[in-house]
């Protein structure tokens, strides 16, 4: 077998940072901003990606607006991210659209956060968020995963059971930062 070429040893190529905001994404962000003004924070607008942060009291209303007016129709993923320093757990919904061909490239990240407790008691403490299951049906299993992995209880979720973890798991929710892998 022939010897493959060794990789080129040139310095790291850096992509040019984009100065102008992409127009189409900006228009989606503007619609959100004009409807909810200061209640939504547009965190970034990049090509094909938008990120919006809202308070947990507003998340249902904003999500309904995103579904009905902006035509995003399904959730691709629901991610919980633990920030122990800020004492909060952020939940990010990545929303996409199958029905609107203009939006097929776009992914809208809707982020909200729940308070984080030092000694979690999943389901019985203040780490709670309203469930988006009535608005985006597809979040059902994703929210179940988020509940067991980070201890975020989703109110009004029809089926708040364990999904991936064993039924008798008695440790901390494992995706929290204070749950350490042994030997690392």
């Amino acid at each position: 077998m022939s010897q493959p070429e060794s990789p080129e040893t040139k310095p790291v190529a850096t992509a040019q940072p984009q100065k102008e905001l992409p127009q189409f994404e900006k228009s989606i962000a503007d619609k959100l901003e004009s409807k909810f003004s200061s209640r939504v924070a547009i965190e970034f607008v990049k090509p094909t990606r938008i990120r919006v942060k809202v308070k947990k009291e507003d998340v249902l209303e904003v999500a309904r607006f995103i579904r009905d007016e902006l035509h995003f129709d399904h959730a691709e993923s629901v991610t919980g991210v633990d920030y122990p320093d800020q004492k909060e757990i952020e939940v990010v919904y990545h929303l996409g659209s199958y029905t609107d061909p203009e939006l097929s490239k776009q992914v809208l990240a809707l982020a909200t956060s729940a308070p984080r407790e030092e000694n979690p008691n999943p389901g019985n403490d203040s780490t709670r968020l309203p469930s988006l299951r009535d608005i985006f049906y597809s979040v059902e299993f994703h929210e179940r995963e988020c509940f067991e992995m980070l201890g975020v209880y989703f109110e009004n979720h029809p089926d708040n059971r364990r999904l991936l973890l064993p039924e008798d798991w008695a440790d901390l929710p494992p995706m929290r930062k204070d749950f350490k892998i042994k030997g690392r």
Partner: protein
Amino acid sequence: MATQLPPGLQLEKLDERIMTLNVGPQHPGSGHMRLIIKVDGDYIVSCDPDPGYVHRGEEKMAEYRNYIQNIPHLERPVIHDSCNILYPYCLGVEELLGLEVPERAQYLRVIASELNRCVYIQYWLAIYGIFLGHSTMFMWPAGDRELLIDLLEKITGARVTHAYFVPGGIRNDVPANFEDMCLKRVNYFEKRIKEYAAIFYDNPILISRTRGAGVLSREDAIRLGTTGSTLRASGVDFDLRKKEPYDAYGELDVHSDVLKDGDSYARSKIPWLDMFESCNIIRQALQKMPKSGSVRVKLKPNPKGGNDEVYKRVESGRGSLGCYIVSRSKPEPYRVKLSVGSFRNLICMPYLLKGEKLGNMPAVYWSLNYWPVEADR
């Protein structure tokens, strides 16, 4: 007493007519997962999927390793489709670090991921064949798969766990006579998979078992957020290779097939049609690929990503595969989330199996193109 038990352990009262069946986790027809099925006579009343038997904490492990160390373990959820599951991670890290992939590497990535898609689909098809009691359909794809596995071994050095993609390109260039070898094998492979029509897809027994079983309408496919072959079998034309082209896909002509029936037959046919499309893409890519040039940009040791986050997605053998990376200026990612097609299609199971006959369960279950290990991560 029962009320004090944690969620998931409550005891339930059942009608005497209703019997609970545990399909799996040891059942050869369930993969590494359990389906808790309640039957009334021959009909399924409810189905509760219980994944997690192969949960390996890939996402947690990724927080403890740097961007390069994450490569080999992140492909473990689907070793048969290992190029495609690493793809969004590599694209994400490239955006975080500001890397530009050389053109030749982009084309080789496309070729490797299409070959891998065929390898995965053949394995899936082999199992679908044996699920339906068709042993020839187990032997043929499992044998024809070897053609491409041997080819991938020549490129990457490993038969299944390639770890071929790295942020900034691919690990090594292909051997000298790669183009001819690849073309010859892909052409022969295409000739072979054409023969599956006569033995499997046009087979009246298969058609009678899968037609009309587990019908998913277009509206429900969208509402449930399904992806990949499940979505395209229900009449939604959504393929990321076409809709959001990444790497060299933008310069290639991709036609993915869409069927309107939404039943198990359509769902099982889409992956087979995808293999023909993969062969087309490989032939195009071989033609357009630059014949020489670098295949990787060199990284700094222990690269760090800035305070940023990316969400990248590709079309894998099981549908859209997203990778969400949160970086906090450290050599290790702060959070990595894989949003995999199998996990997204899991929601169909209780929905589709309700009201089906128990005998239709394997035909419907495996037609969802579901890979239990990937869903658990």
